[in-house]
């Protein structure tokens, strides 16, 4: 990100805060529903002081990251399997069409039976709704590896497994990461919605509890926290992307 872009983000954020504060002060809307920034900050501070915010935040982020990592690994494994066996790919395509549109909220009530209210529940739901990004991108990317690169491996008398590890996966990784970036957003959605419904802990639960007890500044503060979480998760994925496919990040910035 260039300095100019950062500056713009800052200007824009200040602009939003200014508009917010003005609206709140002018009293166009009842200030009860539209508290000032100071009040929201105080709400956040209170939640930090009594420890509930950080505890919930650790829960939510931990679940989102764990689920995302597992979903990514499973997605890639399934993509490899699909690449090896067209028969599997064709059959799994049917399942994808059926399972992909199911919203996470719909799975939560029943999944609670199977997995209880602990980490397992969240992992299951995240995996169910996030493997599709890494999987679909992985299948497409593995298929798109230039045949010359694979033949190169064969000329070096590499085994199929070596070709997969040293050639196909590295070649497919940038596109897989595009799928992971999408999956990260979905993973956070899945966690928050599951916490809202399962109702025991985490940011989603806190959000529902605060709003049901009409703690409006806290509700706004928590919504802001979920946005920040989205940014944090995106940054994490980006870090992984730079670490594993730094060459591609550079190439994108390189004038062709």
């Amino acid at each position, binding site marked *: 990100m260039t300095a100019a872009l950062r500056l*713009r*983000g800052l*200007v*824009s*954020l200040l*602009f*939003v805060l200014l508009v917010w504060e003005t609206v709140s002060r002018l009293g166009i809307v009842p200030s009860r*529903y539209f508290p000032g920034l100071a009040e929201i900050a105080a709400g956040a501070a209170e939640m930090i002081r009594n420890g509930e915010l950080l505890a919930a935040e650790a829960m939510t982020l931990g679940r989102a990251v764990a689920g995302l990592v597992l979903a990514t690994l499973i997605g890639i494994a399934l993509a490899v399997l699909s690449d090896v066996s*067209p*028969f*599997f790919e*064709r*059959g*799994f*395509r*049917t*399942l994808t*069409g*059926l*399972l*992909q*549109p*199911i*919203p*996470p*909220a*719909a*799975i*939560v*009530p*029943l999944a*609670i*039976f199977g997995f209880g209210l602990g980490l397992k529940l969240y992992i299951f739901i995240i995996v169910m709704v996030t493997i599709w990004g890494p999987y679909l991108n992985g299948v497409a990317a593995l298929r798109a590896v230039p045949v010359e690169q694979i033949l190169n491996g064969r000329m070096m008398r590499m085994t199929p497994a070596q070709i997969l590890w040293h050639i196909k996966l590295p070649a497919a990784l940038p596109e897989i990461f595009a799928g992971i970036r999408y999956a990260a*957003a979905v993973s*956070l*959605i899945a966690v*928050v*919605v599951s916490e*809202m*419904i399962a109702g025991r802990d985490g940011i*989603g639960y806190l*959000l*529902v509890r*605060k*709003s*049901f007890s*009409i703690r*409006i500044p806290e*509700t*706004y503060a*928590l*919504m802001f926290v*979920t*946005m920040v*979480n*989205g*940014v944090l998760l*995106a940054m994490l994925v980006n870090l992984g992307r730079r670490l594993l496919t730094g060459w591609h990040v550079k190439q994108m910035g390189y004038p062709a």
Partner: protein
Amino acid sequence: MTPARAAALAAPLALPLALLALWALAAAQIASPLFPGPGKVLMAAVQNFWIILDQMGATLRRVLIGFVLAAATMVPLGILLGRVRLLGWLFEPVIDMLATLPPPAIVPLVMLFAGTGDAAKVTMIAFAAAIPILINTFEASKVRNAMTSLVARSLHLTRWETMLRVDLPAATPMILTGVRMAVAAALLVSVTSEILLATDGIGVFLQRQQENFQIAGGLAGILAIALTGLAVNTAILRIEKGVLFWHYRNDGQS
């Protein structure tokens, strides 16, 4: 039918059927009401057919209204932000920020303002659907193809004509991608709001099944959602291909 043709036809179904058989076998082994087999689920689906249809109808009605509201307001707004440089410059980071907000997180907030009725739910759904439509419309109308702009000018089209007949068609593929994401978000928020603020809808049905330990009925409900989602996605893809035949013919991929 030749064996090769039979194999080609079987491929899409073989794996799902094998998994189904595995599931049936496992269910027969475990023999617990908490782990129903596919037969039980099918029976529950038949038993609850009219209820599911009814509740699904309630859900889809709200999804449709919310979605139409979102599309009707956000497409023009997105074009405006994309076209008026200053507005775009100012609001792009705001839009990016809103994009990171998980759509269901607005359910509690809107409830505070609008309560738990139908209007409140439609508002939540509209809000969730609005964001992807706004982002994609904005992004699509920000980039303008230099070549087609030149052509438009050489044809002496007015600004409005250019916008309507050149820029808008060029922006449609991306806008439709936003539409598809919006439908998914709308369905998600709809189900979430129903479970949290129970009145009616497929979410309520799922919740009731859980409360009464009716796992088979719950799975039947999920199956109904899956099939609905599949049908909606297929329909949107159809429409996309119909409206955007030139796009698909141009470069073969979306």
